[in-house]
Structure formats: structure tokens, C-alpha cells
């Protein structure tokens, strides 16, 4: 990392970082302390790389895009889940405490296995389009209203960083809970007219304690989401759809067609 080394605020930052290497039998969970002079535009991406390269080269953490689109760098920052790459130290107090995200399996220090968690979620909710017809390479694309495309894109913006899952009171105690990110995935496919799954099929996935009715309404996910996804509305949308399903025959009126009911 070639970062400007001059001081900006003159602040001396104190980092308390969780350490544990499960592969090393002599390692035990503990906190290590590092000090670093703050530089202009400093983010936790810059700070953690400096700590590793200048002070402790064994420190494990994850980054990739460093621009808040890949979702690699979720951490507990002073107890609150967030993306390290877009967290500016200027917005934090002199002492910064970093822990790995809970719920996910620890790989080492600040690094957790979100990949396996999201893969099992994708398999569970079958996170792909269940198409009505096979692809015809010679045909023009099926038309879609641009407003609907935008609405689907809204749900598609989730970067699977795991911050919502880590902040979820239910996900922390019930491993089977599909979690806010999972709910968001489901809502994204429910509103997509290209997907043939009916609300009845979704009902089996969504309507249990492991799905939307497992949520106890703390809604930390909504407050925490680094991409500002409207998870409150996602839950409301799913509950509404599920209630409409059980309240037959009213359901037929409440749910005229996928295309029209797509706006959350």
C-alpha cells in the first residue's frame, strides 16, 4: 500500500482487534492493541492494511473491491456491523474496536466464512430464475416495463456482505432462519414475472418460523444495511403476500397477477 504518510488530524488512533487463529493450537481468542496516526481520507481499508504491513503481518481480514460493491469486508466496528472499506476513521472515536461478524464461521481474526452461508441460502431459496420457457437464441428478448426492471434491480442491489444477518437477533440464535438477505432474495424473485414459482410454492419456504414469521421485528437489518436496502418494506411485502395467500378466497382479489403486484 502506497498511502500518504503525513498526519492530518494529528489524532493517534487506538485499534483493539479481535485475534484468534483456529488452525493454530497455541492460539486463544483475545484482543490485540495497535496504534496508528490518522491520515486524510483514512478508511478502515487503509488502516487495517497499514497495521498488517507495518505492525503485525499475521493479521487476517478480507477485502477485495475496496469500493463497497463486493461485500467482503463486513466487520463489527465498535459493536456495529458495517463495511470496513467505506468506514472513514474521521467518523469514529479515538478508540476503534473491531470484531469479526457473528453468526458466520470464523476463519481467523476478522475473517469469516460468509461465502458458505450465502451459498447454502442460495440453494435453499433456489436463488435463480425458474424460467417458464427455455432460452431461444434466435428470439428477441421478452419485453419488460422499465419501472418493473428498476424495482427488481432494487432488490438485486444486495451485496451479500452479511451485515444484516450479523445484526439479526433471530439469526444469532436460530441457525435455520433464512435471514434478511434471504428474505430480500425471495422478494426479488417473487416480483419477477420471468420466474414461474407461484405464491403457493413460495408459501412453503417463507411462511414458517424459519421464514418471514420468524422475524421478531427488531429490524436492525434495515438500520444496518450498508446499501440502504428497504428491508422493512421487503418484510411487509412478504407478510402481505403470505397473508393474502391464507386468506382465501380474498386472496384472488388481493393478488391479481404478479406483474401488477410487483411494486413494493
Amino acid at each position, binding site marked *: *500500500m*502506497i*498511502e*500518504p504518510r503525513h498526519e492530518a488530524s494529528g489524532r493517534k488512533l487506538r485499534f483493539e482487534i479481535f485475534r484468534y*487463529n483456529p*488452525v*493454530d493450537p497455541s*492460539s486463544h481468542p483475545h484482543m490485540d492493541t495497535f496504534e496508528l496516526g490518522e491520515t486524510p*481520507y483514512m*478508511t478502515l*481499508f487503509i488502516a487495517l492494511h497499514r497495521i*498488517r*504491513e507495518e505492525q*503485525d*503481518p*499475521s*493479521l*487476517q481480514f478480507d477485502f*477485495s*473491491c*475496496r*469500493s*463497497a*460493491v*463486493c*461485500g*467482503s469486508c463486513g466487520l463489527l466496528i465498535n459493536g456495529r456491523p458495517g463495511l470496513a472499506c*467505506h468506514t*472513514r476513521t*474521521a467518523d469514529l472515536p479515538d478508540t476503534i474496536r473491531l470484531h469479526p461478524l457473528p453468526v458466520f464461521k470464523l*476463519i*481467523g481474526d476478522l475473517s469469516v*466464512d*460468509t*461465502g*458458505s452461508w450465502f*451459498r447454502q441460502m*442460495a440453494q435453499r431459496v*433456489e*436463488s*435463480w*430464475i425458474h424460467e417458464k420457457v427455455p*432460452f431461444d437464441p434466435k*428470439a*428477441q*428478448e*421478452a*419485453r*419488460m*416495463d*422499465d419501472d418493473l*426492471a*428498476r424495482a*427488481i*434491480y432494487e432488490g438485486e*442491489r444486495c*451485496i451479500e456482505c452479511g451485515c444484516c444477518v450479523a445484526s439479526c437477533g433471530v439469526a444469532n440464535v436460530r441457525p435455520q432462519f433464512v435471514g434478511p438477505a434471504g428474505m430480500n432474495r425471495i422478494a426479488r424473485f417473487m416480483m*419477477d414475472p*420471468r*420466474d414461474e414459482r407461484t405464491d403457493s410454492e413460495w408459501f412453503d419456504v417463507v411462511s414458517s418460523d424459519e421464514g418471514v414469521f420468524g422475524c421478531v421485528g427488531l429490524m436492525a437489518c434495515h438500520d444496518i444495511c450498508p446499501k440502504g436496502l428497504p428491508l422493512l418494506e421487503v418484510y411487509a411485502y412478504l407478510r402481505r403476500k403470505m397473508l393474502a395467500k391464507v386468506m382465501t378466497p380474498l386472496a384472488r382479489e388481493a393478488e391479481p397477477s404478479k406483474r401488477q403486484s410487483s411494486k413494493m
Partner: protein
Amino acid sequence: MQAVFTTDVLVIGGGLAGERCAIEAATDGHDVVLLSLVPPRRSHSCAAQGGMQAALANCVKGAGDNPTVHFLDTVKGSDWGADQEVVRIFVDQAPIAVRELAHFGVPWTRVRPGKNSYFIKGERVDISEPAEKVGLLMHRDFGGTAKWRTCYAAAGTGHAVLYAVDGEVVRLGVSVRDRMEAIALIHEDRRCWGAVVRCLRTGKLSTFLAKATVIATGGYGRIYGQYTTNATINEGMGAAIALDTGVVPLANMEAVQFHPTGLMPSGILVTEGCRGDGGHLLDKHLHRFMVDLEPEKQELASRDVVCRHMMEVIRDGRGVETPYGPHLWLDLRHLGEQHLTTKLREVYEICTEFLGINPVHDLVPVRPTQHYSMGGVRVNKDGQAYGMTGLFAVGEASCWDMHGFNRLGGNSLAETIVAGRVIGRRVAQFARANELDVSTALAVRYQRQQQKRIAGWLARTRSGPSVYAIRDAIAETMIRKVGIFRTGSELEQAVEELSKQLRLVDQATLRAKSPGMNPELTFALRLRGFARLALVTAVSALARTESRGAHARTDYPARDDAHWLSRTLARWPQDAKEPVLSYEPVGLIDLPPGHRGYGKVESVDMTDSVEEYNACVETAWRRQGALEPVEPIGASMQWGSWRAAEAETEQRRRA
């Protein structure tokens, strides 16, 4: 423990090119193992904001577009360095590929009915899109294209496409192994049989033996350190392990693209869509210099041209001075809050989150930043690596070669999918026609070699430089002396400095000896390959005494088609101290070299006729180790089709 796994197809790299290739092989019934440094959805493909070029001609400003016009733009954009047959394959397949992605669920932005407001060359223009096109895939304007052609999903095309494609990978049951790094290819007698793989969870080694091995590890922008838009994982290790074989060449490594709008100071990319949608570039006096320098295309000339003008303006002392070096301004204010918070939302978020500025009211500090590697593992049109049966490469890691010396915006994301489909099919055919006829003793031998290498790093005790110091020194040399403008004397210095850093790799010592993945060891294992890629880039740039596309020599400003209408091939023979260069023809020429329509005009004409040039292509390629493609060379050419397209475009432009 010697863990040996077998599969039909081993794909190294979980970005879009690798995943699309894996889908093709899995659909054909093969067992596919896909290795990725990160969970595939975190691959750098997710960061592509702009879009995918496909000539569907769905909006008014795309009217009259077709694959041949796309062909013209791409060949001109490449500064005639591209293989025109590969360009043809690409432009013909791109419309099918984007439609298939719509089928996979990508929420492409669609044509909206009635009056639409666009910014064109800085002016607000209202255009009414015809009713018969409403709901089809919309296009936006990107640099270097005659038509609006780039399909996009708001400002997050790469992300949306990657999630849709990864969904298909999950559906097909491809065995995805994330946090796994291929650190050496297993090969014998010019036949590749898989790779030695290190687990980035535990540090354990294993080998994966496969009938076909595919390198899809993306670019190597990190050799430019912080002066790149690339993710931290883009260290080019697929190309590096191919180079390590001693027989597989890397091609056109000197062709490095810089993006006009890397955000200061971190290098995060601000999409070309900003300029496409009407953003302006300003100097420190807030003067819009591109209007003077490129009156026709203005901010939308191709990337290399815009970057060079920006660097000239900075060299003239018209950059804004900061402690991080000079920069210019990107002005998006006139696009308005509505536009910036919807169509360019990711850009808006990057500005507010990372810099604490609001592009609705504030200017955005930008400078040209390394962005894309046109060079890579040299492959034939089927994606087969030169000189090594059973090894394929696809996407940015490869030199296929549809970009030549400059890639157009919207053509790389499109390449990942189109090449993934085309090459994936060839990989599947290859796996069907071949058996896994390899001894596990070979696997064990390769694995032991790597174990020894690791043990060597951990055992080294004398005090040497840190691996990060070497990395930083390489990056400083690259940005200062192998950057946008290049000269012979600086390149000579660069070669010397990089050779020295490469020698230092053997003296570097680790401070962390902890068991497990050990992040310092993980990087140390990449360091020699990293230094070699940098040196190959500098050596190739020094040798090419002309300017073509992104390769701009101030001491040789002309494009020289008499001597340099060629592709650089760099091999690194086993135990050699430096790479060995050779050259081959770019490919069959249909559209003869001419003026690109933007940028400099200076050039030296071909001395051979096109017919004479074309007559030598096949023999010359074979001599360089090119394998026989399934269909003969030239089978996909559509000779002369560009004439009508160019005439039509010219007519429309006049009208």
C-alpha cells in the same frame, strides 16, 4: 498428506468469464470444479458499473446499428491490433449473450415509452422512443462507438450479471471451491493436467487433476499498486502460473488501459457512464478542455485518447495540486439529483461514502488510473493456450484477442460472457474427446515442489526486504515509467529497476510464521509471478518502438503498420533471468488499417498488401505454438461486410 482430486474441467477463477465457461461445460454434462480466491459473487466482475455492448439497435440513438458497425468500432478502437475474426465472433454473439442474461434474470434497463431526456455532448436532449421498441433492452452511449449500444442494469451491470450467472452455477451444481488459489499448473510434455492448489482457509495444499484446465483469473492491475481501479485480488496469478510453465506465452502485455476517471485518492473507478450521460472534464480553471482538444467526440473519445489529453493538461500545470499529486475535475452537477441518484447511483454513493462529497453540488476529483489489461495468456480463437494442450484461458486473463491495443468501454463485460459461452463450448468438446490419462505420481511431484517452495519461504531467516516493500517498489516503477506516456530511456530504467526487484524476491523474508493461511506467506507465494508480470510488461513496452492504442511512446509517436502490425509474445523459459520476446501477425485483416476517427492521425502505412499479410498469418501462428482450432482460421470472417456498414453510418452522420 497428498490430497489429489480429479474432475473433467477445472476452472481457475470465479468471475464472469470463469463462471460462464463453467456453465457451458456443466450443461454439457461434465463435472466442473471452480476455484476462486473469494466467493464468486465477490469477484471483480461485480464492480463493472457500465454495461455490455450488444448491437440490438433498440433506441433512437442506436438506430441503424448492427454487429458489423460494432465490428468497425471495436477494430478501430483496438488501433488495428485485434484479431478481426475474433472480433467478428464476438459482435455476432453479443446480442444472443445479453438476451440470454435477460433470460437468466438480469434486470436490464428497458426502453421507456414517450419522451426521454438525455444529455448529449453536454446538452439536454429530449427524444421520443418509438412505441414498438418499448420494453426492449435500452442502450447508453459509451466512448469510441458510432451508436448507443451499451446495455446496462442501472449503474450496477456487473453486479446484476454476476448474481444471475452465479445463480445458474449454483443451479447446475458446479463444485465451487472458494478461498482456493492455484499456485502452479501441472503439466508434462506440453499437456496440462490441472493445478496445485493452496487453501486460503487452512494453508493446506492439494492437487486437482483435470482433462481441461481453464485460466479465468482476470487482470493484473495491482502491479500498479494504488494507481489502479482493480480490486486487491487482481494480481494476475493465472497469467503468472501460465508464464511459469516456460512454454505458454503472454501476449501484448504492454497494452495496458488507463481509465480517465479513477477517483482520487483511492483509485476507485467512476464509471464511463458519467461521461456517456453527459459529464464534463474540467481543469483547475474549471475549463472544459476536451471541447478544444476533441471537438467531434469531446469527453467521449476512446479511453486512451481521453487519458492522454488529461495527462497533457496535467503536465501543462493545469491540474489541481493535492498532497496525493495532481488531479482534474469531473463535473456531474448539471445532470441533476434525480439522474445522479438513480441512473448513476453507485457513482453518487462512492462520492458521498468515500470522499464525503456530493456530486449534485461538488466537483469530483479524478485522474487517469490503470484499469484494464488487454494482454494476457495467448490463446487461439477456441481459447486454447499456445504451446500447451488441455489449457484454456478466457476473459481478461487471456489475449483472445478482440481488444488489440485498446478496449472499448462495455466490451470487456460483454467479452466475459461471449467468450465464456464460445470457449466454454470448446472446453466441453475437448473434455468429451479426451481422457484423464495422467499418473497421480505427477500430481504428487508437483505438490512436493510447492511444499518445498513454501518451506523455503518459512525457513528463510536472514534479514531481507519485506515482501510489501518489493511490491511497493514495483508499483512505483510501473506508474512512473510504464504508465500512460512512455519513452525509451524511462523504460530502460524501468527494466533495470524491475529486474533488481525480481532478484530481491529471493532474499525477501517473512515476519509472520503463523500456521494456517498466513496472509504474508500468501502474498509471498505470488510475489515472483507479480514481479515477472511487471518486468514482462516493461520489456514488451520497451521493445515496441511505435505508438498504438494504449501504448503511447513519446519517442515513437506514430503508429507503424509497416513494422509493428503485430502481437507481442513473451515467454519465460525455465531458469531464464528474463523473458524472451517474439512476434506474430495480429490475424487476418479485413478492415485495413486507417484513421480511427479520433485521436492522433500520424501513422506509417503497411508495406505489404493486405493479401500478402493475410497469406502469412496461419503459418506464423503455428510457428508460435498456436493449436489447431476446431474450425479453420478465417471461417467466421465476413469479408467486406464493413463497407456497406461504414457507408451507411457515414450517410447517417451527414444527415
